[in-house]
């Protein structure tokens, strides 16, 4: 594969409601009523956006956010929504990183994936006969629409597993159920082993220097790979039932990265059992989109009423009201993972929510939810427990309030002492 026709990773907009009319039996399908209500949320004629694995991993990292679950579940373009709300997201991808990522993936998969299979064999199957490059099946997975491609992938996996040889599936399409509606994810590659095992391959363009890669980036890649493993497990169940062979989706994925400062590939197995368990639990916890949609006031829609040249004509006040109709769980971590984060941050700051300062802040503050309340409690201006009469000498019952007052007193004392000292120094 040459650079220009390397398939772009994480290409969006696969989910097309026209194809959803006849989903294959293996795919999770939304109920017709839900599909109608989600279409109404998006606005008539607006195509839904696809959830990619990165978005899924981010969603699973903040499962308490109903706003994100609904908007992602309905396939709403959050970037455009944030723009129309007046708080656009600031992140994007540099084309240098994009080109580099694509050229690296193309290099790894060149020659029918010979390099890739060599690395996979070295890292995961030492001691077994290496795959013959000519004997590796590389089935064609092209089909119309994501449902078609997912069905084609399932078929190819079944055939390859039944054949009992090596097979490399380049950019297969997999379905995974998120909050009651299907999402399609696309791993970089899946390898079928002769013994019926399947391995997810994740190709990333951050470097592995002296065998060590950035821990945060490896963690993100592992969470993403866990989503693929999860999606493969559904297919594996069906294939095992049809072929009668034992199918095992391996929980060690292969992470392929550039070696040191070059563009040559190296690889390491990554155990994703922990990420898999986390993702599974978080996805199960995600409040069902259906329930969130049902709780919305009637007539709520996130339709931007785009003109032909892509401008939003919906008044921002109406959009704000629609967005506010569903609760968010903002934390500063959202800024790196969600297009709507600047809007949520603005609201959190206006409300004086303590979470705007960090997720861990709440822990020590007991029942105090706003910065105003905390400061009032710290200075002793207004004790929240109004029903219990407190005197000046008796400490309030709430240990959090007590600790806050103590902290405020100690802080004021130290600052006053320092001010005195600096005044003394000036006098001298």
């Amino acid at each position, binding site marked *: 594969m040459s650079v220009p026709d390397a398939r772009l990773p994480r290409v969006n907009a696969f989910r097309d409601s026209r194809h959803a009319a006849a989903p294959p039996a293996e795919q999770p399908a939304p109920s017709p009523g839900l599909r109608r209500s989600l279409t109404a949320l998006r606005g008539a004629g607006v195509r839904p956006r696809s959830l990619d694995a990165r978005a899924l991993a981010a969603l699973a990292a903040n499962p308490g956010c109903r706003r994100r679950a609904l908007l992602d579940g309905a396939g709403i373009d959050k970037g455009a929504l944030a723009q129309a709300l007046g708080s656009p997201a600031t992140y994007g991808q540099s084309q240098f990183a994009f080109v580099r990522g694509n050229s690296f993936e193309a290099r790894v998969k060149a020659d029918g994936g010979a390099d890739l299979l060599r690395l996979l064999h070295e890292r995961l199957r030492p001691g077994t006969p290496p795959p013959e490059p000519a004997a590796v099946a590389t089935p064609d997975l092209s089909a119309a629409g994501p449902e078609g491609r997912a069905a084609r992938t399932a078929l190819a996996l079944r055939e390859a597993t039944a054949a009992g040889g090596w097979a490399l599936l380049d950019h297969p399409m997999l379905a995974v159920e998120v909050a009651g509606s299907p999402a399609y994810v696309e791993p970089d590659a899946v390898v079928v082993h002769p013994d019926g095992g399947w391995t997810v391959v994740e190709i990333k363009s951050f470097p592995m*220097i002296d065998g060590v890669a950035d821990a945060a980036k490896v963690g993100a890649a592992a969470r993403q790979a866990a989503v693929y493993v999860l999606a493969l497990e559904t297919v594996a169940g069906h294939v095992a039932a049809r072929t009668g062979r034992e199918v095992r989706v391996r929980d060690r994925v292969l992470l392929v990265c*550039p070696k040191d400062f070059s563009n040559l590939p190296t690889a390491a197995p990554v155990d994703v059992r922990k990420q898999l368990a986390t993702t599974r639990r978080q996805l199960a916890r995600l409040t069902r989109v259906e329930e969130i949609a049902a709780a919305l006031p009637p007539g709520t829609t996130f339709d931007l009423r785009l003109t032909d040249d892509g401008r939003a004509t919906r008044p921002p006040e109406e959009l704000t009201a629609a967005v506010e109709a569903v609760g968010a769980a903002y934390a*500063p971590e959202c800024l790196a993972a969600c297009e709507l984060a600047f809007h949520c941050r603005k609201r959190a700051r*206006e409300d004086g929510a303590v979470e705007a*300062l960090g997720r861990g802040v709440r822990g020590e503050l007991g029942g105090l939810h706003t910065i105003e309340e905390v400061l009032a409690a710290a200075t002793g201006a207004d004790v929240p427990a109004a029903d219990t009469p407190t005197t000046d000498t008796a400490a309030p019952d709430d240990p959090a309030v007590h600790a806050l007052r103590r902290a405020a007193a100690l802080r004021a004392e130290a600052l006053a002492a320092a001010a005195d000292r600096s005044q003394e120094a000036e006098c001298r």
Partner: protein
Amino acid sequence: MSLIETLARMEAVATGRAAPLATVRHRHLSEQPLVFVPLTTAGEAGAPLGALVGTDREKPALLAVPQPRNRDLRFAFLAELAESLLPYVDGFADVVEWEERKETDPETGKKVPVQVELCADAPQLIVPSAAGIDFVRLLGRSMRFRRTAEQEPEAPYPAPPHVPLLGRWFTHFGERARVPGASLLLSMTGLLTRHWATGQSLLEDQHLGALLAWIDPPARHPTSTPRRQRSAPALQGVSGRAAAERAESARDADGRLLCPPAGPATDPAFDNRLLAPAMARFDAGVPGAEDEIHGLIESQLRPTWDAVWHGIDLLRGLPPGARVADRWKRDRWSYTAHRDRVRAGEPPQPRRDDAVTAAQKLASRETAQAQLDAQEALDDPLVMAGRRLAGEALEGTVTAVEMAFSEGRRPMPRPLVTLRTADRTPLPERAKLYRALPDGKTQTAEFVAYAAEEPGALVVRLTGGMGRGRTPEPGSVPEPDDAVCWTLFEHAPRGGPELPDPEDTPWTHGGPPGATGAPEDTPDTATAEDFL
């Protein structure tokens, strides 16, 4: 985040200005620091894009790579970087003072005092952000194993002279930056967040422009666009917040961020809209394209350069902590030791530390962390307030002193001191307490009992710091009405027992170094094709 810091952040939200987290400066700031603002090419590990370097805020040296995918241009950049940095780093090597140190004599095995050189001062590098420190490490790794034509005349693609040497120094700086409290290589965001709490989260504090906007908001926005603020009435003055939000996302007419990211990553919109077309023109050989790229890169670097100096000014406004010079001396030892290794012609630092070195580094960093925590608290009443809140120190007023003596053949003074305190520090029986004496020494004591008749009063027995005589040295025993501060933590923690020498380390723990230890300093393979 401790409760006191949370409270400071909330104060900052309420006032619209950053609140102090320290009353003194806890890091050494050189008279003449070298500021290094690097940029890298997105998605590439070893392809720097440009940098501003220098010790003069008015005259930074601009280094830029017009096409980072060209190996010769990258090498030219690194050579220029070495030329502008190494004279500064070497400039401190020859001014030395003499220190006495105990060393084991190899013949007699006794500890004998020897005179050793200690550089009188050391270089200090300041980068904008924590990512900048990582980038210095990365550059160090990419350069130190290179071979120059002088070292290996036969090898293809030799590196320009001095580049491997700069790599070794960068590696040393990067490694030293991992020692808590060390100041050879500092990040401006790290320095500022140590001394001020802003009204935003720690995550958002990583943006240097937004951080400075909270600490020292500009008097008025140059462009007077009225901002719609729906602020709650109790929160007065949103200037810090408004300035920080503007620093994060405001763009000029060209779509450039007014306050570009402090690097080394660039703004993706800048890459896509301005830099990539300019590079395409450079590749096509359009005249003037190289100057255009230089101008573009400078436009992204200059605001950060100015911000770093702005931060240095703010930090210079704080008086240095009393024990900062003590920590800087350790940095000077570190610099001197690396100078000696380079002069002795030792090979570059290995790719990965062996087990013994790694254990030693970890132990020394743990000790440094404990020392830093103790010293910061002793230097700064605001830090001590946090330790008092955490129940690790107590401050009180002496109400009575009763003379007492230890039992034994030579009775020593062991006065009993009663103090009244508002701190509710939980003290176990016979807890060891420490107090800093005015002359810098530490006095030890042990907790005896809470006074029965008075809540908040307790008795401690002094156990040291009073000299060797039968009568305590003057000033070493507090008197009634003195304010005293006792800590439960040691003032000069020493760390665990010394680790054995590598030769005596059992093989289970990575030693002794066997014959199998292949030299780790083999250069990275150079390929004919430039695989980047």
